[in-house]
């Protein structure tokens, strides 16, 4: 099963819909509770990164029996320093977005923490491609 959702820049009303739909689909196919929880965090953070930072993008979930792949592809400014972007607390979110409870600099760190595998490629003024894999198992956390 594969699902792709369009994600619009700065659309805070509809933001999070894609992650919510992915969650419902994973519950329907009977993924482990912990897998669903981690997938929701990864999907939501990836979706919000597009909403906050990019011009537009897509969020895709590919569901396999043993794993889930979540991909976020966007057209946007790109990430100049990827290591810095993965540093907890580092954020380039604008002030009006921070006032909504975002911009704490935990988006990419959380994606890394809750996924099992992660690849990211970014080109300045072109966009960013993020690929994550979450294995369908309980983490024992």
């Amino acid at each position: 099963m594969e699902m792709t959702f369009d994600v619009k820049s700065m659309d805070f009303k509809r933001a999070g819909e894609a992650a919510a739909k992915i969650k419902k689909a994973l519950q329907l196919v009977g993924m482990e509770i912990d897998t669903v929880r981690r997938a929701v965090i990864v999907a939501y953070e990836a979706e919000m990164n597009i909403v906050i930072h990019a011009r537009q993008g897509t969020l895709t979930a590919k569901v396999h029996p043993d794993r889930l792949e979540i991909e976020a592809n966007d057209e946007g400014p790109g990430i100049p320093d990827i290591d810095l972007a993965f540093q907890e607390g580092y954020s380039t979110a604008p002030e009006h977005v921070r006032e909504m409870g975002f911009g704490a600099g935990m988006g990419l760190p959380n994606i890394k923490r809750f996924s099992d595998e992660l690849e990211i490629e970014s080109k300045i003024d072109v966009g960013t491609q993020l690929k994550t894999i979450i294995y369908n198992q309980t983490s024992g956390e």
Partner: protein
Amino acid sequence: MKLHEVKEILHAEVIYGEEMLDIDVSSGFGCDLISDSLCFSRPDCLLITGLTNVQIVRVADMVEARAIMFVRGKRPGEDVIQLAKENRIPLLVTKRFLFESCGILYQQGLHSS
């Protein structure tokens, strides 16, 4: 703890979900950050927050929180109430601060998420 007990303890007002006050909240999570609410709160919890935009309802839905308590007397807009109705998540508001609200509920036996 029943939601109607939470309401009484914090002298809260129900914005939406008067008919659902009999539900149980198993823990509480107090936070003004979206990411932390998503990562650290637990299913069946009460989210206690000063955030009043639609994204807190999205997060509540995703983490399967049972209800949201807005602190500092902050009231959400109509779009937030609408999304809460769609997801059947009761909304309450108290004039207490976040720290006070969490402290009082903890003292009354509500555990941390």
